[in-house]
């Protein structure tokens, strides 16, 4: 019986795959950019909108001002000895500050100026590659065209393009993305306390992998919702699942604690689909698995 169940499960998981793919493609127009790597896998980057970039710009502006004022205070000290040379150096520094600040910071520090670093933004090529010197120079030279009318041209073009690119980005083929911090999602603690469902109380229906991972994510993020709202949402799925499963246990479990019921469903199917001894030995949580074996 179990072998038929697994084949059913595989057919179920293979069926929705193209559907899923389709829906992913449909949601592209949002704040995300997709590129395909040479490894034939699609990568998603989160684009940075005008507001974030404005904040980063203001930070950079403040820093550039500070550099300028700092130079104006320090360099005249040299001016006591060689006033002319000091003026010359100051002028060159002003030039570099105006035209070179972004190019140097983005070209040599992996696409992050100081303001972008603070805001968690980064400039990359639109193929997902890191930015190099020439594109950095190009996008920041064209900045002077974007900056016409207080960045009016830049912002207008940004709002007209799908990837929020200003003119400089369009020419240099770059995009500004938001960086996310890496963190592997943790397993919800709640699962430790939940007992899997009794096999005698449920029918032969097997929830699809997608449903299971939906439950997993829902439980993992349940703190986002209030207690009532969370349970109200969980009840929708819990009722349907109980019906499909022909759940014959305590109906209060479904109506009163739908979240716990979902967790129990998850635990039942996520940990016991294969009862191969070998795989059990190397399973995710050996302690729980052994408890399940006892049940079965």
């Amino acid at each position: 019986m179990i072998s038929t169940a697994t084949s059913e499960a595989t057919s179920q998981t293979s069926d929705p795959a193209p559907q899923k793919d389709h829906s992913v493609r449909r949601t592209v127009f949002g704040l995300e950019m997709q590129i395909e790597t040479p490894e034939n896998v699609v990568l998603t980057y989160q684009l940075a909108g005008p507001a974030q970039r404005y904040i980063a710009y203001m930070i950079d502006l403040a820093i550039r001002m500070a550099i300028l004022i700092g130079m104006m205070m320090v360099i005249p000290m040299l001016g006591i000895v060689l006033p002319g040379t000091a003026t010359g150096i100051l002028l060159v520094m002003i030039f570099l500050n105006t035209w070179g600040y972004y190019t140097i910071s983005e070209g040599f520090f992996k696409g992050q100026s100081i303001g972008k670093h603070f805001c968690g933004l980064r400039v990359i090529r639109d193929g997902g590659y890191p930015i190099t010197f020439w594109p950095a120079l190009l996008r920041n030279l064209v900045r002077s065209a974007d900056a016409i009318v207080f960045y009016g041209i830049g912002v207008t073009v940004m709002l007209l393009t799908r990837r929020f690119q200003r003119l400089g980005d369009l020419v240099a083929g770059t995009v500004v993305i938001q960086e996310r911090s890496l963190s592997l999602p943790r397993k919800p603690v709640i699962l430790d306390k939940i007992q899997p469902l009794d096999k005698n109380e449920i029918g032969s229906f097997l929830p699809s992998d997608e449903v299971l991972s939906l439950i997993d994510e829902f439980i993992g993020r349940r703190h986002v919702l209030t207690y009532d709202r969370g349970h109200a949402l969980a009840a929708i799925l819990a009722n349907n699942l109980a019906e499909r499963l022909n759940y014959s246990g305590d109906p209060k479990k479904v109506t009163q604690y739908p979240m716990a019921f979902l967790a129990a469903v998850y635990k039942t199917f996520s940990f016991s689909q294969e009862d191969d001894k070998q795989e059990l030995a190397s399973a995710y949580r050996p302690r729980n698995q052994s408890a399940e074996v006892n049940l079965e």
Partner: protein
Amino acid sequence: MNKHKFIQQRRPHWKQFEEFLSNASGKSLAKLPAEELTKFSQLLREVSHDLATIRSRGWGHELTSYLNDLVARGHNLFYSAPPTNVAGLYRYLAVDFPRLFRANLGYFLTACLLFFLPLGISWCVVQNNPSLANRVIPAELITKFDQMYGDQSSLNTDEENTGGEQDAETSEDSNFGSFGDERASMAGFYINHNVGIALKCFALGILLGIGTVYTLLFNGIFLGAVSGYIVSQGNGDRFLSFVISHGSFELTAIAISGGAGLILGNALIHPGQRTRIQSLQVRGLEAVQIAGGAAVMLVVAAFIEAFWSPSDIPSLVKYIVGSGLWLIVFLYLGFAGLQSDTRPLAAKSRIPNKSTETELNGKRRP
């Protein structure tokens, strides 16, 4: 294989990859030992595969985004360009820039037309009719030019930004140190001012080339009027001997950066077989390398203008050296990098398309 077993199995690899990324984030990959690189490339492909697996099975948004970011970072590191170094800079100046310049000669010539033609016309007009100079040049600048190149000014005190330098002229001959010092300040001024103009002239080409054309015309007319006015006042020899040396680099570089700006504009107007954005990207990368060369030339010009042009040397010598500099500029742009058979440029890989495109564009241009 369910989600938990999958995570259980793959997790050590992800951790390893993560560790590798955080270790390697500061350095370039080229410095790592070979076996680590092999390991890294292996892991990158593995994690990519994991990402594809998880996505196709719909195993949750969080897991997908975790792996997505992991792969993105690896991708970013693995496919990063080789670091730029001094050898690259030398190669750029000795080979790449002159080559790119020659490949886009038509734009340069057009820019020359837009720059030198108005310059010549306004020079002739103003020289024959100096009163017209008032229409182009602000009055205070005119009096300054009179002072700078006039009889009472000794040649070696030519200053462009401050007429007040006059007081210094007596002490200047005796003290070379102060001479050099003042020149240094002028060098800074020229770099800031001229390179800024050239870069702007290039960048404004993105506005369908209008900004570039305007900058070229404006500067051409202005410089022509200034020259015409100064020559008409009988200070021609002092002025020309001052201008001839650095003019070689300066005027040519302005026209070159204008040409680069025209490339941008034309890429938008005549995209050829590409979309406008594609054409802008492909041509833009070439254009910026040309403009960068122009900026370097202007820095050279700034030093010549600050230290050599105003120095106390007979006009004849200046004319000879100045002509030599023009020859150098011509030889550099015309012949540098011709015989080099080293690796082709990144941008040069598109040369076949581009040459046909420029031909087409050349025909279309009136």
